[in-house]
Structure formats: structure tokens, C-alpha cells
């Protein structure tokens, strides 16, 4: 039987690399393409996706309420008002990761598959129980990595764990790339990161101050026309959707940046 729904776990190992930003932005990009998308926060006790999507004031029930039978799945889903193809299944903020099991999360995702074409699962940092919950229902995984040693090492460890969980399709998103630093020889290039990890490159996202603005306002950066990172996330969504999209040209070309580089102050 053809599988209509795809569950994608977005993970990293290391915290703070941009998992939730990726889930919110790529989820919205897919919804803009007309797909039915559910973004699911499995970071129980430390949820973030609601803030990234500006939905924090609309949460009544959460993932644990559904598992415990306090609410129905439909009641816990928060639909985006402007993009109704997108729904959030929030994590509980005052509970613990140990209160749910991988089997329960898998069952929940199986139920979501009836309604959604894409289920993006935001994994917590680390490789403990929360991570195991997040990967249990996944058909494929996206690994978000920053071009720095701790992030790449953790990601390599996560790849090993994903492979041992029989997850074969693992794609790489290199986030917070600074082309100027790469050019100066002070940041690992995307190519080197990909060589070390030896998995398929799905996207490259530049460092972008506008991401802070987007988390301030609760409007994912993918909605920001001026944001290069937003465009990169949009392209990732389109690649997941099956389109062939070229990688962004990220070289800094503004006069100010060139002057800064001449005097080594960039």
C-alpha cells in the first residue's frame, strides 16, 4: 500500500542549532505549497514551536493530554489562522519527557497520518528518552547542524543512533553558515561538514539576524521576504515537496561588507 503521509523527525544532538526554527519554517513552507502539515513538538517540558509560530496563546490541550485521554487529538491541534493547512501539536510545558513512551508517540503519529501529508517532529536536544520518542515514528530524519566541531561531532553520533534504529533516509541541513568566515578560513565549509557526515545535503541556511526578529514576533522567517535564511528554508520545503531547487548563492556582495573585509573587521 502506498504511504500517503510522511513523518520527518528534525534532530541534532546538540541544542541551540536551529531545530525548532527549521521545523516551524519548513512546516510553513510546505503548508504554503498547499500540503496538509502537522508540526509536532516532542520537547516535553521545554516546548518552543508554539512561540516560533506565534500560537502560544491558543494552546488548550497538548500531546500528553491526548496520550492520557484527557482530550481528543482534534482538540489538541492548534490550526494556524492565516495558514489553515498548518497545525501544531504542542508539547506539555509542565510535564516530563519520561512520562511518554516511544510506542505512545508512534501511535499518536499513526493517528495524525490519517489527516496530514507531512508530520514534522521537533526532537529535543540530547540522545536520551526524548530523542528516542521523537525518532520512533519517523520515516525519515533531517539532521540540523552548525558548522562547528561540537555540533558536527554530536550529529555524527546521532547518525549512528538513527541508523541503528533502521532510519535510512537522513538528510543534512547546515544552519547558521557565515560565508564571509568560510572565505576567511575561519569556519568549516558546508562541503567539509558534508564530507565528515557523509549524508545527503538537503539545505544550507545562512546566519541571519532576521531570525531573531522572527522569533520576537512569532512569524516564521520563511514569511520574511528580506530574509536570506527564510528563502533557504523555503527551498528546503520545496525540496522535501519533491521539487528540484538550486542552492542559494550566499556570498556577501554589499559594499559595506566588502570594505569591512578589506580591513578585516567583518
Amino acid at each position, binding site marked *: 500500500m502506498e504511504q500517503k503521509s510522511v513523518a520527518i523527525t528534525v534532530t541534532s544532538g546538540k541544542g541551540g542549532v536551529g531545530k525548532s526554527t527549521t521545523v516551524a519554517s519548513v512546516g510553513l513552507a510546505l503548508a504554503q505549497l498547499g500540503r496538509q502539515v502537522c508540526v509536532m513538538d516532542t520537547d516535553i517540558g521545554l516546548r518552543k514551536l508554539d512561540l516560533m509560530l506565534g500560537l502560544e496563546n491558543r494552546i488548550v490541550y497538548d500531546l500528553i493530554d491526548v496520550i492520557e485521554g484527557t482530550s481528543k487529538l482534534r482538540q489538541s491541534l492548534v490550526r494556524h489562522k492565516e495558514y489553515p493547512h498548518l497545525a501544531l501539536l504542542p508539547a506539555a510545558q509542565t510535564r516530563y519527557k519520561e512520562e511518554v513512551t516511544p510506542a505512545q508517540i508512534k501511535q499518536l503519529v499513526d493517528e495524525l497520518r490519517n489527516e496530514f501529508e507531512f508530520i514534522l517532529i521537533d526532537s529535543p536536544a540530547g540522545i536520551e528518552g526524548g530523542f528516542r520518542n521523537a525518532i520512533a515514528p519517523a520515516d525519515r530524519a533531517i539532521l540540523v547542524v552548525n558548522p562547528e*566541531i561540537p555540533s*558536527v*561531532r554530536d550529529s*555524527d553520533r546521532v547518525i549512528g543512533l538513527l541508523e541503528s534504529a533502521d532510519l535510512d533516509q537522513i538528510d543534512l541541513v547546515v544552519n547558521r553558515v557565515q560565508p564571509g568566515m568560510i572565505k576567511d*578560513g575561519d569556519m568549516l565549509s558546508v562541503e567539509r561538514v558534508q*564530507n565528515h557526515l*557523509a549524508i545527503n545535503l538537503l539545505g544550507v541556511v545562512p546566519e541571519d539576524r532576521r531570525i531573531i526578529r522572527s522569533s520576537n514576533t512569532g512569524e516564521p522567517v520563511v514569511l520574511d521576504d528580506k530574509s536570506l535564511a527564510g528563502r533557504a528554508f523555503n527551498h528546503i520545503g520545496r525540496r522535501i515537496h519533491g521539487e528540484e531547487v538550486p542552492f542559494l548563492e550566499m556570498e556577501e556582495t554589499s559594499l559595506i561588507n566588502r570594505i569591512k573585509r578589506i580591513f578585516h*573587521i567583518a
Partner: protein
Amino acid sequence: MAFLNMFGKEKERPTAATADNRLSLVLSYQRSDIDERKLKQFQVRLIDLCDDFGYDVVGQVEIRPQSRQQDNTTVLNASIPVRLRGNSEDEESAGV
């Protein structure tokens, strides 16, 4: 003054290559589940093996894991300075 310093500022040595080398090493250790204790045991066994084949180890044995990227495997490079035992015995018996 800060403005003048800006012109005279020397460019620092790039660090990405260092990061790349360090990363290769830590990934090799991680992928092979290698630690210093295991390397030490391996070193002892190699010295024994040399002994079995009639070689004396005459210097520092070094085992260095390296990452081979084309197939994501680790290569253990062992450097073992040896001398054929027979030769040294001949030398000793000859009173050298």
C-alpha cells in the same frame, strides 16, 4: 586611535583547517569507540605479536586512528620501530 589600529590590524591565522583536523580525529575515536585505555591494550598486544614473530620493539609504539571519509571508516595507523631479534643476539654474542 582605534581607527588607525583598524588599518594596521594584522590578519589572524585561519582556524578552519585546525577545526577540520580536530574533527577528523574526534570522529575517528567516536566511530570506533576508541579510548586511550583501549589503545594502550592494543599497543601491548602489538608488542607481544612482534615478539612472537621474532622482533624486538626498539622505540615508542604509536597508534593513531584516522578517519577515512570515502566510506566513513577508521584507519588505525600503527608505527612500531623493530629490530630482528636474531641480529641483535648475534651482535650481543659478538660482544658489540
